[in-house]
């Protein structure tokens, strides 16, 4: 395979598409599929056959606006139809080249105009199981360029120049990590893609793997070339069956096209990828726990150093990056590190995909340049909280993050500013809460999560989360005291300082951030025995335990 052959495949696809007057893209992401968008596609095909029009009906990945699903996108006019059902099939086909169906029009300009799609550029545009469609949209150019024109050190230089940082939440500079693995001396090295998206309320990685799996595979192959690895693993949650099946097909397609396997592009570079299924353990998102899980062991983290870059899978140097990090790589190589570095802020470069959910009008997946004010995401792109309710907080970073109140909505989205606000970037979950959410209860919810997901290896996390959960439960049911609150704050710092891995170190964050911005709600529960949001079931008869 070389650039010319890629061009040939691409023009083959373009020529084929020229035979059609219209392209009807039907979203088949998990959200729309759950509303039977596969039946809609079949109905559209039947209606098309009857009409005699020339249109290509294509299965695509996620189009982003899950709230308006099932979605259908008609090209060449970029006409987006929402809430399509099987009944609309005839009307949609009849509208091709005529007046659009008025009742299905989705007119959310601002939602799409304010976004900047890099990772999601192909999502909802290509059939995720057809590698040639990915190639037709410049796919695999990055890998072929790297293999034929660049030395591994040049690849790492581009990545370093781009300023890309780990999208799993930590924000470690990707170029630096790659450099460390590349320098490690070993015959065998591994590349692992972390698709164990455990943060409840986040689905960026699922959507990426379902909508554009080849992009992740290409990113991994480029990384393997840069660091000198010949074997890769994609660790995906077992809860994501559609992502697993699309990945399986995509790996087979990539091998068929000679983009995985031995002597890729006629060079001495060999690389292949295996899928490993997670089995439902949040802690496996931590890199050393994930490695233990791939080795077939219980997913418990271990002390670092040595970091996986020096000693990872089976004791060999291992590069671990998140799905979204790898998904950025092909575009960086194609357009250059400087292009990527021009997007975003001084220290946070590029774009970030967020899963915008909760009490917000336009739920779904959005991708915005770093540095965009939080307000623009929530109120502009997200459309704000539904009528009649007021915004209270937005939660980022999952169980490791925190709640950002209304008065801080003007901060920009970047690794630094979110940490400053007491939260963190995390993997990209963004959950909007209105005045019907009780912040103490939210803290309890996350603590319950951390308590059950704690692997039990180190005591501060294992015992501390249980104690904090007990205290929060007491406060929520109205039997908490001011002493309980002091003890809670005390425990927060112990667990934060003394835990072994990220799970424990960040478990107190939801408590700390709600205490920082919503202390009055804690006081209402403790002193006034009242839950203003009306969520907590306060037992007024409860004896105050001194």
């Amino acid at each position, binding site marked *: 395979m070389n650039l010319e052959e890629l061009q040939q495949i691409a023009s083959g696809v373009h020529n084929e598409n020229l035979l059609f007057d219209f392209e009807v893209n039907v979203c088949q992401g*998990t*959200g729309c*599929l*759950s*509303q039977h968008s596969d039946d809609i596609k079949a109905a559209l095909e039947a209606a098309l056959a009857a009409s005699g029009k020339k249109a290509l009906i294509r299965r695509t990945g996620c189009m982003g606006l*899950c*709230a308006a*699903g099932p979605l259908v996108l008609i090209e060449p006019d970029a006409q987006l139809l929402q809430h399509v059902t099987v009944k609309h099939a005839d009307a949609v086909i009849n509208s091709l080249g005529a007046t659009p169906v008025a009742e299905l029009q989705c007119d959310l300009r601002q939602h799409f105009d304010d976004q900047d799609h890099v990772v999601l550029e192909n999502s909802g545009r290509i059939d995720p199981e057809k590698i040639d469609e990915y190639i037709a949209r410049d796919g695999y150019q990055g890998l072929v360029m790297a293999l034929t024109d660049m030395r591994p050190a040049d690849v790492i230089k581009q990545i370093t120049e781009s300023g890309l940082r780990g999208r799993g939440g930590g924000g470690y500079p990707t170029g630096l990590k790659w450099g460390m693995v590349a320098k490690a001396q070993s015959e065998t090295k591994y590349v692992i893609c972390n698709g164990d*998206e*455990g*943060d*409840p*309320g*986040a*689905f960026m990685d*699922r*959507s990426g793997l379902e909508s554009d799996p080849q992009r992740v595979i290409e990113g991994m192959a480029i990384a393997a070339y840069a660091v000198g690895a010949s074997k890769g693993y994609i660790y995906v*949650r*077992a*809860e*994501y069956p559609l992502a697993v099946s699309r990945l399986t097909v995509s790996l087979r397609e990539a091998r068929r096209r000679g983009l995985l396997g031995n002597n890729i592009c006629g060079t001495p570079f060999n690389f292949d990828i295996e899928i*490993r*299924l*997670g*089995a*439902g*353990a*949040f802690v496996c998102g931590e890199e050393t726990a994930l490695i233990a*899980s*791939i*080795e*077939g*062991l*219980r*997913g418990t983290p271990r002390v670092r150093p040595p970091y996986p870059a020096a000693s990872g899978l089976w004791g060999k140097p291992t590069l671990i990056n998140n799905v979204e990090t790898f998904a950025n790589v092909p575009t960086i190589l194609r357009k250059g590190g400087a292009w990527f570095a021009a997007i975003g802020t001084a220290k946070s470069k590029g774009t970030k995909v967020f*899963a915008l*959910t*909760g*009490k917000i009008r336009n*739920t*779904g*997946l959005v991708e915005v340049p770093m540095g965009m004010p939080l307000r623009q995401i929530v109120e502009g792109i997200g459309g704000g909280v539904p009528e009649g309710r007021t915004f209270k907080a937005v*939660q980022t970073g*999952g169980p490791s993050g925190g709640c950002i109140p209304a008065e801080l909505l003007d901060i920009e989205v970047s690794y630094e500013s979110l940490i400053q606000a007491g939260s963190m970037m995390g993997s990209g*979950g963004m*959950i909007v*809460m209105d005045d019907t*959410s009780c912040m103490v209860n939210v803290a309890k*919810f*996350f603590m319950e*999560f951390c308590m059950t*997901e704690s*692997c039990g290896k180190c005591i501060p996390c294992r015992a501390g989360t249980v104690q904090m959960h007990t205290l929060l439960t007491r406060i929520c049911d109205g039997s908490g005291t001011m002493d309980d609150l002091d003890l809670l704050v005390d425990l927060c710092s112990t667990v934060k300082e003394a835990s072994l891995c990220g799970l424990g170190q960040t478990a107190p964050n939801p408590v700390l951030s709600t205490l920082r911005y919503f202390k009055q709600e804690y006081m209402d529960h403790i002193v006034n025995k009242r839950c203003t949001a009306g969520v907590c079931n306060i037992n007024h008869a409860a004896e105050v335990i001194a």
Partner: protein
Amino acid sequence: MLSISPPPLPSDDKRWKIVNGTMRRHGFARSALIETLHTVQSSFGYLDTDAIQFVAHSLHVPLSQAYGVVTFYHHFSLKPPGRHTLMICTGTACYIKGTEKLLAEAESRLGISQGQTTPDGNISLMTARCVGACGRAPVALTDGELLGQSDAEHMMAELERWAVE
């Protein structure tokens, strides 16, 4: 050199051949433990003692380690599931949108708590830690079919249908 032959299949159930196939594909490597347990669970629906013993012996993994892995990961179940499974997502987005009510409703309708199966073995009530369909929260899965948003009624209707089957 001492060579240990793999243990015989626990029974002539054809599904053991599928399990064996997974282990063979991984060269009977110890690291194939989780992958193999996945195959057992998807073939049999759960992991019983015989299955864990068979897999542990075949892969030369101490039984304690195999049992440790089975009980560590939430996905693996030691009990057979009901004929139908209702799974309710308790992820953050679903929590914000009131999944607790959905769960309470299902619990009172079925008379069991989460993680249990009705005494007649008909319905299992499970919770999931986020199925990644937050755009449609709150979410429930009836036998793997995803129901979103205001589908609480649909969920209850499905329960009624299962009950009379």
